[in-house]
């Protein structure tokens, strides 16, 4: 539904405290990239690392964006978010491993005929699991952070074991479709096709989320609910239904991110979601709880920093993420784009 409303006769734009774009957090992205250039030394290597960092950032964004909305809107600490990532990855793998013929055809249409159902399966499976989690595990512990941590950690462990029961304990190799395998060369820089594809998918997801949140009534409700759920209820809206919708959508996005991440890693295992959880929480905190824009910027910062550090000082890769989080919180204690929660 469109949120367009009749504008008043007088254009008020000239009259007021103008809302300016908060650009300093955005400027951090090119700043980190440019700061890394002299350290890396080689322009082609820097280009390769930058594209890899952006791709990684986009995939982290897909995995983290649902969690930040759940955090912001529902005030739920969901440590089981990792299992949605793993289940999404397994869902995609289940489809892709049955469609090897289409994936080896070296045609985009053929690859898409395998990847689209795989991605849809990932989203649907993770979304379904998210619905189950909200109904059965999360609903009884709304408002109690300690119980949320305990029950979602328990849920994570139980469902990781359930993955072993359903798909077996072994790592599942996951070959990429032919058209997004390999690299193309620009100048002397080698750019992996899959990473470019990940950047494009990430941008599409971000644009879709931005449009949904800023151009629809549902998005308006979600943004208002993140700030002050009680007031949204006082306006006559049933926030619980919104909670369920956001939880399922957030789980589905985690499933999409898991599918992308699995194809990036070319393998699937039950712990892959839990392994990403620390980075995802860092991104959510850096961005500001509940802020999708902040989550996007934070994910790109972490993606870039991890790749540059991984090249320059591999043992410090995770440390760089924590260092960025500390620096950001010293600068903006509530994250890059804090939401004014009531």
């Amino acid at each position, binding site marked *: 539904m469109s949120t367009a409303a009749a504008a008043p006769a007088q254009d008020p734009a000239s009259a007021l405290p103008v809302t300016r774009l908060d650009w300093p957090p955005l400027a951090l992205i090119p700043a980190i990239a440019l700061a890394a250039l002299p350290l890396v030394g080689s322009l082609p290597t820097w280009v390769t690392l930058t594209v890899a960092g952006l791709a990684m950032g986009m995939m982290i964004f897909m995995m983290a964006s649902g969690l930040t909305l759940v955090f912001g809107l529902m005030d739920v600490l969901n440590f089981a978010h990792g299992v949605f990532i793993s289940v999404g990855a397994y869902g995609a793998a289940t489809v892709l491993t049955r469609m090897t013929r289409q994936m080896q055809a070296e045609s985009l249409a053929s690859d898409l005929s395998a990847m689209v159902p795989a991605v849809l399966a990932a989203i649907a499976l993770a979304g379904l699991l998210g619905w189950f989690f909200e109904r059965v595990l999360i609903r009884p512990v709304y408002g109690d952070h300690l119980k949320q941590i305990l029950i979602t950690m328990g849920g994570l462990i139980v469902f990781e074991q359930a993955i072993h029961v359903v798909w077996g304990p072994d790592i599942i190799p996951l070959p990429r479709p032919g058209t997004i395998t390999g690299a193309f060369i620009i100048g002397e820089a080698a750019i992996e096709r899959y990473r470019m594809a990940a950047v494009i998918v990430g941008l599409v997801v971000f644009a879709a989320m931005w449009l949904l949140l800023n151009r629809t009534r549902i998005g308006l409700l979600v943004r208002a609910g993140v700030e002050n759920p009680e007031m*949204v209820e006082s306006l006559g809206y049933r*926030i619980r239904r919104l909670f369920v919708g956001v939880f399922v959508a957030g789980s589905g996005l985690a499933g999409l991110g898991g599918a992308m991440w699995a194809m990036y890693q070319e393998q699937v295992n039950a712990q892959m979601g839990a392994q990403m959880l620390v980075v995802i929480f860092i991104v959510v905190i850096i961005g500001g709880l509940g802020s999708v824009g902040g989550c996007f910027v934070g994910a790109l910062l972490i993606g870039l920093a991890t790749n540059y550090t991984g090249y320059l000082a591999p043992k410090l890769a995770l440390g760089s993420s924590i260092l960025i989080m500390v620096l950001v919180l010293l600068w903006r204690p509530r994250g890059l784009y804090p939401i004014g929660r*009531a």
Partner: protein
Amino acid sequence: MPEPMLALSGVNTHIAQYHILHGVAFEVPRGGLTMLLGRNGAGKTTCLRTVMGLWRASAGSIRIDGHDVSRATTPDVAQLGVAYVPENMGIFAGLTVRENLLLAARSGAPDARRLEWIFGLFPAMQKFWNALAGNLSGGQKQMLAVARAIIEPRKLLLVDEPTKGLAPAIIANMVEAFRELKRTDTTMLVVEQNFNFARSLGDTVAVMDSGRIVHTGGMDALAADGALQTRLLGLSLDSHQ
């Protein structure tokens, strides 16, 4: 005698282990403005929140326009045509003025004539139409909170301390707005600490103390009785002239 718009009977409210409202009973007549007065901590805000369903009454009955809402959820109460302006105004700081009003118009885009009427009451809303609500001054935020509550016709308006912390010029604007609202069909229950504001607008009054209703009646009678004011409220309206 017509049924009151709001009737509370024997309402008790507990918040955690604290017993806040003790058998609260009073009525808000249709079409008028009832002031709910009392010292700080008397239970006025709890009373409004209990009516709104934000805190559940542990005993007693709450009826709005003939409907029993004692066990109703907040959205159910709101959908009966009740609007609520909380003490902290409850505006969505990250949304624009336009978006705040749009969200409150549950039936779709706000009616253009209604919008013009609101702009007449609160010109700042038109001026700051596309501004982030968080950038508004305290008075403008209060105007937005009231404007949001009346963006569609409501049966009952619950307002918690609309003049709190506002400059005298803004309070005068607020008084005019409430006078205009009184000309509509809307019934209002307003919690207020500013006695002059209460006296200038109130038709009836209920006074609370320690979670109980200790006085109900006409506002004129209370305004004319300095001794009663001192006994109920701790000070006389005359001292606020």
